[in-house]
């Protein structure tokens, strides 16, 4: 009996999305990527965000929203407990599975790409459409598009983003971080690697001899590997030429990417 009842509930829940008009204004949104949280707040939908990840720390008002965990992979029950009518996910393998499970219990989901700066405009427009805030989304999206539309300044310096030291992992051309560097007038010495990140040998970093070593870190001191003997074979490490970039601003593409470019430019001009 109980099982039959449960089955009926699932059936009804399963039917619901198709009965409704395809675009409805969402009022209870769970955002599962810090960038989406920032965009939602920036277009004026912040008061409708009812769930976020532990990483969503901007704007400060986002911290008042209930957290549903780290989001990798999403905790379906924690998300469902927020009773959302829309869940926004980053388009990746595990998230596709999570989205299917959420749809199965009648929660609308949207999977959005956000790997490069070009993805910001379309993602913002889509979120504007889903929240009925098209106009504000359009003006933000236009500002984001202008970031990638304008011609790149001639590079005046070179850098390597070091994500991890043992084994050495660097950022390649596939990441928006490489784009941020180019916009700030610095060439990523690993822009021949098309992947977003890759393991390389230390001697390659030393041979490509970047002016700067960029690290994403909230500590304001050089990274631990700066003291390791083998890393001192890299001239920029020996000279202490580190760009220490705060993770909240540089760790994700979003409405503040233009600000990230400005700050990087200022650091390079030191």
């Amino acid at each position, binding site marked *: 009996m109980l099982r039959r009842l449960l089955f009926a509930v699932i059936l009804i829940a399963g039917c619901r999305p198709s009965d409704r008009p395809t675009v409805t204004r969402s009022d209870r949104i769970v955002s599962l990527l810090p960038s989406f949280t920032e965009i939602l707040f920036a277009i004026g939908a912040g008061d409708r965000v009812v769930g976020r990840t532990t990483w969503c720390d901007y704007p400060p008002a986002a911290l008042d929203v209930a957290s549903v965990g*780290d989001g*990798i992979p999403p905790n379906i029950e924690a998300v469902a407990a927020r009773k959302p009518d829309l869940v926004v996910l980053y388009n990746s393998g595990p998230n596709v599975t999570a989205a299917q499970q959420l749809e199965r219990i009648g929660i609308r989901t949207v999977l959005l790409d956000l790997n490069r700066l070009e993805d910001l405009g379309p993602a913002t427009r889509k979120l504007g459409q889903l929240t009925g805030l098209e106009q504000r989304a359009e003006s933000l999206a236009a500002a984001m598009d202008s970031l990638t539309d304008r011609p790149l300044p001639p590079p005046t310096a070179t850098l390597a983003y070091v*994500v*991890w030291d*043992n*084994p*050495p*992992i660097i950022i390649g051309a596939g990441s928006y971080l490489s784009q941020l560097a180019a916009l700030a007038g610095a060439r990523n010495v*690993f822009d*021949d*690697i098309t992947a977003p990140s*890759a*393991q*390389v*040998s*230390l*001697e*390659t970093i*030393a*041979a*490509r001899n970047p002016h700067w070593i960029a690290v994403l870190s909230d500590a304001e001191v050089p990274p*631990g*590997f700066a*003291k*390791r*003997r*083998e890393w*001192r*074979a890299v001239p920029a490490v020996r000279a202490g030429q580190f760009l220490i970039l705060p993770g909240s601003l540089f760790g994700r593409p979003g409405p503040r990417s233009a600000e990230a470019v400005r700050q990087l430019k200022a650091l390079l001009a030191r």
Partner: protein
Amino acid sequence: MKWALLLVVAGLALVASVLIGPAGLQSAIVWNLRAPRALLAFLVGGSLGAAGASLQALVRNPLADPFLLGLSGGAGLGAVLAIALHLPGPWALPIAAFIGALAALVLVYRLGRIGGGVLDPRILLLGGVAVGAFAAAITTAIVSLADAAELRNAFLWLWGGLSSASWDAVLLIAAYTPIPLLVLLGASRPLDLLALGEEPARYLGADVERVKRRVYLAASLLTAAAVAVSGVIGFVGLIVPHLARGTWGHRHRALLPASFIGGGALLAIADTLARTVVAPRELPVGVVTALIGVPVFALLLRRWTVA
């Protein structure tokens, strides 16, 4: 003749791994990065080869490899803890991994002597697998509960690699490894006898209990140091002893040095390939040792069983 050939191969492997690299021949890079890395690869590969050969004799099981006795699990746990707790200092990770490996060693050793004072190889094997699995479970729990991005990289470290090679590490390992290696070499005659079984070995005058204790501790200490500086590099300690046995036979006085030199040469070659074949990117060296080692091994296995 076969010794000369082995030494030539090992020498060529070392020279090639110093000369060949994605960065060309810049003296600073060759001296500060490539030379210590080639030597460290040789010492680590050699340690794994010798440890594998003696453990296979100790537990009388051809599947034994230096990491079967739980050391990799312990070292991995130590390394992940060092990263999760943000332990400071450039040597925090290798020291934590070494301590983790030693903790696993002690635990497995205690388990191995559970039936009184006698070290039982079968219980040693089971204890090693159990301790390794337990440590791996705790490691995975930490990784899934803590800051995900950083710890994903800890798993990469676990897959093994020599990118942290420096002259400091080479000197440390070069000063450390001769002691356990000499202990193993000193036990080569009783290890030969142990192949006949413990009872016959005892009748032939071997102090079986003492030999088992010594060999277990020496091989484990070799492996613990190797894993601390280079992570878990698989297949060298499993395959090289079998290859060496095919040529040098079962006498450990010859088998142990041959496994050491052969393991060193294999890892030096594998690391050179790891650095160069997909340059500017790099492959985890454990992937390369498996890709070279397993086909060669399969080929020889076929030849031995057919013959």
